[in-house]
């Protein structure tokens, strides 16, 4: 009887795994089928010569180059804010907070994780309104505001994964540092963080992915269709998910729709590239930790 149950559960597990694979393959195949043909220089740069566009000498109008730059800056900025803060919060919750604080703060982190991104966008928008009415009448939505709101959105992923990675360290390794005379911070820095680095990385990857795809937050905090490449942190910007949304909703001909699919592929590739950067960074840090 139990062997039948075992087999049933095993096949269910296999099936679930296979369906994930199938879904991703279908998605990629579909995107590739509709989009690959449209990936060319014109997709990125429109009529502008690409060298001039990349060097920033001439603005790009018909292409997605500004959106690529916009999304890249958005992800990097929001990660720079949220990953260190998230790791630090995770460390605080596991290593320093009392049980009571941990419960309260943990609940808040969950609440933050459950906040819909449109609400986060509204939050950013309200901040700007408040600033305009008080001591910064010139405040407007832009890259920095969007990055901060996105950072808030992805913060819980980093906190939670850091927390569980630290919690997963067995007691006998947790005690090694203190037993050798390391202070609490030295133990965290030299023993616990290296042990948790892979888990922390997976949180960073989740966060990067989420930052790259979010549209609702940026809609209210500074994304514009023809913004060009932002010249400063308070400028309006373009972003790939917004571009995709725009092309899908407002395309005037089938070519534009196909450009939308191609843009989606580019977004996937860009996110992949960012993941790769995160993995390489973690590997290099890890190998330094292991030997030096």
């Amino acid at each position: 009887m139990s062997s039948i149950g075992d087999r049933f559960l095993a096949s269910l597990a296999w099936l679930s795994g296979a369906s994930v694979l199938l879904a991703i393959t279908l998605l990629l195949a579909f995107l590739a089928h509709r989009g690959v043909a449209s990936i060319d220089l014109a997709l990125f740069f429109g009529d502008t010569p690409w060298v001039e566009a990349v060097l920033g000498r001439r603005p790009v109008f018909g292409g997605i180059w500004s959106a690529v730059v916009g999304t890249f800056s958005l992800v990097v900025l929001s990660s720079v804010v949220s990953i260190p803060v998230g790791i630090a919060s995770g460390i605080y919750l596991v290593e320093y907070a009392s049980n009571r604080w941990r419960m309260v703060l943990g609940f808040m982190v969950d609440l933050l994780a459950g906040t819909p991104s449109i609400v986060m966008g509204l939050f950013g928008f309200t901040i700007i309104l408040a600033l305009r009415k008080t001591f910064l009448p010139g405040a407007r939505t832009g890259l920095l505001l969007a990055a901060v709101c996105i950072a808030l959105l992805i913060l819980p992923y980093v906190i939670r994964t850091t927390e569980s990675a630290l919690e997963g360290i067995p007691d006998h390794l947790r005690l090694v540092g203190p037993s050798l005379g390391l202070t609490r911070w030295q133990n965290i820095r030299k023993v616990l963080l290296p042990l948790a680095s892979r888990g922390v990385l997976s949180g960073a990857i989740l966060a990067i992915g989420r930052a790259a795809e979010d549209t609702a937050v940026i809609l209210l905090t500074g994304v514009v269709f023809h913004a060009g490449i932002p010249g400063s942190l308070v400028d309006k910007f373009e972003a790939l998910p917004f571009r995709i949304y725009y092309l899908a909703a407002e395309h005037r001909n089938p070519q534009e729709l196909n450009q939308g699919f191609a843009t989606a592929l580019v977004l996937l590739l860009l996110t992949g590239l960012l993941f790769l950067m995160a993995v390489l960074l973690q590997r290099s840090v890890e190998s330094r930790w292991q030997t030096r």
Partner: protein
Amino acid sequence: MIAPPEPTVAVSGLTIHFAGKAVLEEVNLTLRRGQLTVIVGPSGSGKTTLLRSINRLNECFPYCRTEGSVRLQLDGRNGNIYEDFLSLAELRRRVGMVFQTPAVLPFSIRKNLTMPLGVTLGLTGAAAAERLERALREVSLWDEVKDRLNDPASTLSGGQQQRLCLARVLALEPQVLLLDEPTASLDFRAAGRIEELLLKLKEKYTILAVSHSLSETRRLADRVCVLREGRIVKELERQHLSDPAVFQQLIEAAF
């Protein structure tokens, strides 16, 4: 008969509570250099807590309250470790501890030893290398690992890992060693090597060990303390250990 030397460690009236529950009660114990003391007792009798009270490691766990004193004799100084006699970091360097599971860090063999040296003593370069070699020789591991110091420590066998952990402690030049069932997770042969090592090390260090194995206790111990429900209920000296049958009887009566 010569007068026994000053005890290196003198535990008196030690009572430890965790979350209001007494784990150790009124424990008195003295440890001397050149003597290997073994604590035996049923699970949950407070053996590990007693061990951890001597390097204040219990404080890494929540809701711990310690009463009584643990006096340490160090380079002519003498003081209660619970009364700011030493900094916590120095205390734990001077009173080294080895755990039941070989707790190697996921670093290279070299870094397992040099990291604590660098972090706690600021030793790097040649000074650290010299201590590393000395410690590895002391645990007879040098010849086995000298050509592969940059390999991950996890590639060593269980017994080698445990000797590496011992070397890591010895590199910090402790005076007291606390060993929490150091051979429990090892096979017969590896355990034998550790035992040999301990018999050699006890000449130089004051050693307090916890053991589950009565035969091992008989081979190693100069003195045996039987712990039951947080109290030391019996202390046996070397002469009681020579006859296995008598020893077995004494222990069984105490358990």
